[in-house]
């Protein structure tokens, strides 16, 4: 059985096309069942890729089916789709899937969501023996890369980096109060990232108090006017500012005035506004840490660089896993020949024992068992080395040659059944 992968991803296809071929889990189930009519199929669809994995005896037929299915989803002709499509077989397909599940093929190396998406695709797919092994090993590879490298340890977006930096100051964000200045999306995203780690968005400040109150209600906090920021500064641990104000909203002097009331409690300020909302000199104050958008981006870049370094280690691990899959997959080629070789040996052993029955005379049960055991051991020992050699040859890609040779030498049928030997 050949493993065939046909897919579209962010490497070649624009977002508009990826949107067209994206399939929800329920659709992935139906599509996999339709494609697995006389084989196996799994449909993996994420925001960056839609990939169809098929295991079939006829690779060309499987590939044609997969391309047709993708073309139907995209509403394009098969010819139009070709330039966006990639097609991989067997080892290359396995290596690709292992890279995908480890997050090595993602836009952000090491992203964590993909492993769950691969698992879901496998669970809703129509996997048989080959694809079950392939996806099982893909999930293991993904976990292995994550546990044996640091690829997923550092955050890789501005909002998650901001939250991780706040955690460098405050041990546990549960109980930390956040003041969000501005009602823009960027600020909300950062505030949500902090809230996801346990912080409370306690106060929202905006030029229009009504807008601040409306947004604060969504977070379960209070709304305040921009002019009142200084008054509430003593009661918060983190300030996130992202307004479109042309000037500074919070000066060093204003922060300095509230420091005594804070009794040494640190204050972390995140200014993602351009032009900046917070006076850069605030960072000079004892216990105050101010990061602007450029500071956050430089940490993101360092995190990504670290992930890329770890990805190199991850590549070596998935290559090892893909090689293991290739050896297993290749061994499937020789399994029928080995089975028929063993059956042929057993057939000869039983035939010869039956012929010798007359000459052996009456045997006791223990004598009969001894004769059975000795003849079975002779057959096993004779066939042991050819069996091992065939498996090794299969792993080294010489499998078909060995299979043909063994079939010829031992007179086995093409279908794996023992062929009658003319005497």
């Amino acid at each position, binding site marked *: 059985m050949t493993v065939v992968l046909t897919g579209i991803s962010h490497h070649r296809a624009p977002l508009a096309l990826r949107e067209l071929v994206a399939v929800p889990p329920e659709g992935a189930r139906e599509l996999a069942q339709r494609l697995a009519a006389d084989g196996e199929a799994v449909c993996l669809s994420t925001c960056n890729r839609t990939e169809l994995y098929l295991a079939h005896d006829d690779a060309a037929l499987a590939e044609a089916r997969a391309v047709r299915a993708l073309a139907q989803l995209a509403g394009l002709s098969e010819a139009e789709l070709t330039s966006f499509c990639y097609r991989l077989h067997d080892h290359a397909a396995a290596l690709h899937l292992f890279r995908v599940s480890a997050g090595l093929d993602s836009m952000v190396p090491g992203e964590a969501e993909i492993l769950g998406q691969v698992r879901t695709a496998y669970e809703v797919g129509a996997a048989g023996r080959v694809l079950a092994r392939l996806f099982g090993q893909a999930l293991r590879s993904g976990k292995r890369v994550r546990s044996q490298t*640091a690829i997923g*340890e*550092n*955050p890789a977006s501005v909002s998650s*980096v901001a939250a*991780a*930096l706040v*955690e*460098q*100051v*405050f*041990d546990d964000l549960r109980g930390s109060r956040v003041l969000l200045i501005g009602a823009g999306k960027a600020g909300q995203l950062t505030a949500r990232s902090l809230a996801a780690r346990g912080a409370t968005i306690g106060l929202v400040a905006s030029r229009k108090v009504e807008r601040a109150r409306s947004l604060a209600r969504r977070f379960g906090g209070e709304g305040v006017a921009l002019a009142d920021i200084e008054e509430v500064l003593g009661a918060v641990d983190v300030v996130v500012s992202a307004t479109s104000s042309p000037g500074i909203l919070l000066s060093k002097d204003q922060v300095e005035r509230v420091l005594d009331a804070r*009794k*040494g*409690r*640190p204050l972390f300020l995140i200014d993602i506004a351009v032009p900046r909302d917070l006076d850069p000199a605030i*960072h000079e104050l*004892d*216990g105050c*840490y101010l*990061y602007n958008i450029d*500071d956050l981006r*430089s*940490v993101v*870049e*360092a*995190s990504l660089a*670290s992930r890329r370094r770890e990805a190199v280690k991850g590549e070596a691990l998935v290559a090892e896993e893909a090689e293991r899959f290739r050896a297993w997959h290749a061994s499937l080629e020789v399994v029928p020949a080995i089975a028929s070789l063993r059956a042929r040996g057993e057939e000869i052993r039983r035939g010869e024992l039956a012929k010798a029955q007359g000459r052996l005379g009456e045997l006791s049960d223990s004598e009969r068992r001894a004769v059975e055991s000795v003849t079975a051991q002779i057959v096993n020992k004779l066939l042991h080395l050819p069996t091992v050699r065939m498996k090794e040859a299969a792993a080294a890609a010489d499998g078909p040659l060995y299979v043909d040779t063994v079939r010829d030498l031992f007179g086995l049928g093409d279908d794996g059944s023992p062929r009658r030997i003319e005497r």
Partner: protein
Amino acid sequence: MAEALFFPALIAYGQAALAFFGNTRHPGRLGALGTWGVRLGWTSQSALLVLQAVRAQRFPWDTWAGALNLFVWLVVSAYLIWGCKARYRVLGLLVMPPAAALLLVAWAGGGTTGRGRSRYSDLFLALHVGLVLAAFAAFTLAAGLSVLYLWQERRLKRREAGILSLRVPSLVALDRLVGRTIAIGLPTLTVGIAVGVARVVREGSGVDALMLATLVTWCLYTVFLALRFGRGWRGRRAALLALTGFVSVILVHLALPLTHVS
């Protein structure tokens, strides 16, 4: 026999120090290896101390080298309470190299053989030396935490791009631990000093420089706690004050072989 326990402890502490250093460059398995080194070394040193006590049939750490041996064990014990957590492994880099070096010095000074020869009673030694050393171990750990605080604060102030690449405890956690460690160490030191003062009063012996240095240490840490809990001193100022107190601890340690016990 003592050698058979001392060298494994020394090697394990040294290995832990190297592993913690490697962990700063390649975080992960090396950190775990370092933690196991600390555990194995501590187990071996604990067995060594038990052996010393059994052999001597009395308090065997009354020499400066013996006291150093016990001090190292107390510091590593205190570190083991929470230092094995992945985020605190970096503290091992500050604790384990000096621990290995001081253990070697204790061995060179004969502090691992366990032959106490003091004229003081076992009870007095156990209470006075044991408690003072336990307090100093706590102050040493607090100093390590303070150094870590100042280093991490400096990285945040410098806005280092690679700040997230190494897992370090948060500033608030470090600050809290410094305060708590000293809050435990100071009463211990107070009781230890009180036992010593009681003996001085009973025997009518004089006050020496080491006693004065110990009292200065006590005063510094008392000021630390008063400022911390009374005036809300936290963060950088508190860390610097804890380090000032530790300078005094080092002076007492250096004066010990010269002035106090044989």
